[in-house]
C-alpha cells in the first residue's frame, strides 16, 4: 500500500470526526484542494500525522478553529474580474432599478471585498438606500474582518485598477481613507450590509432575493454539495432574480440550468425564468 492511501484514510477519518464533534461538514469538499490545504495546516501545526493531530483536534476547540481557518480559502479582491462587475452595472442593475427595494446575498463573501464593491456600484448607479445585502461565510474570523472594512494600503493600486476597468464613475480614492499602512473603507458603504455566519453545507435558504452571488466557492465542492448549493440559491431567488457564479463555474451541465437564462455569456450571470 502506498503512503498516500494511509493519508487518504486519515483525512477521511479526520473530516468525519470534525463533522461529528463540531458540526462542520467538509466531507463533500473536492479532495485535491482540501488535501493540499490540510497538508499545509499539518505542516504548520507541529503534528507529524493527521492521526496524531486527531486526538487534540477532537478535544480542543482552538485546534479545530485553526484547522477551520486553514481549510477555508479566503482569497478575494475588490472588483475581482472587472468585466463581470461591468456587466452587472450595465446589464443587471437596469433590472434591479425597476424594484423599489432589492435584497442581495453574497454567499462565501470572505473578507467582504465583493460586497463592498457591489455597494459602491449600486450607490453610483443611484440605488443608495434601496438595497440590503446579506454577506455570509462559514469562517467567522473573516466575517469579523469584513465588518471592520480595513484593508492593506498596498492593495489599493490593484483595486483601483479593477474599479476603473469595471466602469467606475468616480475616483476610487473617494471610498477610503488612508491611515499608515491601512485603507479604511468609508462607513457609508457598510450601512446596508449585514455580515453573518452561514454554512452552505448545512444551513438553509435566505428568502426573496433579487440577486445571489456565489463566486469561487463551489469550485471547492464535490458535485453533490454543488447541487445542494444551487438548490439553496434557487429557492432563495425570486423569479426574474439573478444568480452570479465565478468565471469558471457554470450551470451548463446542471439540471438547474433549465430554469435559468444566461445573460452575459462568458461571465456566468444567470437570470431565473418566470414560472
Amino acid at each position: 500500500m502506498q503512503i498516500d492511501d494511509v493519508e487518504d484514510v486519515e483525512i477521511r477519518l479526520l473530516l468525519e470526526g470534525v463533522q461529528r464533534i463540531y458540526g462542520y461538514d467538509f466531507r463533500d469538499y473536492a479532495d485535491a484542494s482540501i488535501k493540499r490545504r490540510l497538508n499545509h495546516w499539518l505542516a504548520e501545526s507541529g503534528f507529524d500525522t493527521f492521526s496524531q493531530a486527531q486526538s487534540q483536534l477532537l478535544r480542543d476547540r482552538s485546534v479545530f478553529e485553526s484547522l477551520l481557518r486553514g481549510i477555508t480559502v479566503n482569497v478575494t479582491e475588490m472588483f475581482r474580474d472587472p468585466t463581470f462587475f461591468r456587466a452587472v452595472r450595465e446589464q443587471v442593475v437596469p433590472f434591479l432599478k425597476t424594484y423599489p427595494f432589492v435584497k442581495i446575498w453574497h454567499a462565501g463573501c470572505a473578507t467582504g471585498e465583493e460586497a463592498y464593491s457591489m455597494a459602491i456600484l449600486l450607490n453610483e448607479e443611484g440605488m443608495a438606500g434601496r438595497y440590503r445585502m446579506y454577506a455570509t461565510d462559514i469562517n467567522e474570523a473573516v466575517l469579523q474582518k469584513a465588518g471592520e472594512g480595513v484593508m492593506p494600503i498596498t492593495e489599493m493600486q490593484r483595486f483601483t485598477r479593477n474599479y476603473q476597468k469595471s466602469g467606475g464613475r468616480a475616483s476610487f480614492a473617494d471610498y477610503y481613507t488612508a491611515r499608515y499602512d491601512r485603507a479604511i473603507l468609508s462607513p457609508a458603504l457598510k450601512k446596508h450590509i449585514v455580515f453573518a455566519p452561514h454554512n452552505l453545507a448545512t444551513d438553509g435558504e435566505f428568502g426573496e432575493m433579487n440577486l445571489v452571488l456565489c463566486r469561487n466557492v463551489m469550485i471547492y465542492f464535490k458535485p453533490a454539495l454543488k447541487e445542494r448549493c444551487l438548490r439553496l440559491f434557487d429557492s432563495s431567488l425570486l423569479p426574474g432574480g439573478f444568480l452570479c457564479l465565478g468565471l469558471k463555474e457554470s450551470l451548463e451541465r446542471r439540471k438547474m440550468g433549465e430554469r435559468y437564462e444566461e445573460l452575459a455569456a462568458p461571465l456566468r450571470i444567470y437570470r431565473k425564468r418566470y414560472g
Partner: protein
Amino acid sequence: MARTFQAVVVGVSTGGVHALQKLLGGLPAAFPLPILIVQHIGADADGGLAKLLDERCPLRVKEADEQDEILPGTAYLAPPNYHLLVEREGFLSLSADPYVSFARPSVDVLFESAAAVFGPGLIGVVLTGANFDGSRGLKTIKNKGGVAIVQDPADAEAPQMPQAAIAATGVDYVVALDGIATLLQKLAARRNTIPHDEKGRDD
C-alpha cells in the same frame, strides 16, 4: 512492476506558446493519454491560447472547466488565475488558492495533485521557463514512481525552469523540444507490463 501510463502533465512558462505548439503539434489526434498543462499566463488572458492550439494541433485542446472529465486525446490548459488539480474520480478541479511558487496557475500544484492520483502512471514534462515552478512537483512525481521528462536547458528559450527541475530530482529523460512528442508516443505505446528496471532507458 506493471505499468500503464494514464496521463501526461506539462509545465511551461516563458516561451510556452511556441513550445506548446511544437509539442502538441507533434502528437496525433489519437494520442492515447490525456494531457494536462499549466502554462503561466496573465490573469486577464482570455482563453485565446487554447483556441489557437486547438486550431493548429491534431489533438483536441481546450481550456479546463471545473469538473471536466479527463479524456484521452485531449489537452487541457489551466485557465488564467486558477490552479488546475486532478480529482481521484477522474475529473479536473480548479482552485482560487493563493499563488504557489509565485504563480497561479502553478505547475507544482498540478503536478502534486496529479501524482497523488496517477502515481507511477504519470509522465511529467517540464519545458522552457524563467522561474522555478515545477521542480517540486516533478520531484513528487518521481517519488510516486512516475516518469520525468525535462526539455534540454540548452534547447530552451528560458533555461531556468528545466535547470531547476534537473537539479531537484533524478529525471529520466533530458530531451530537445523536437524529440519530446516522439518520446511521449513511445512511452504511451508501452501500455502493457514493463519491467521496473527498464524505466529510464530510452530504447
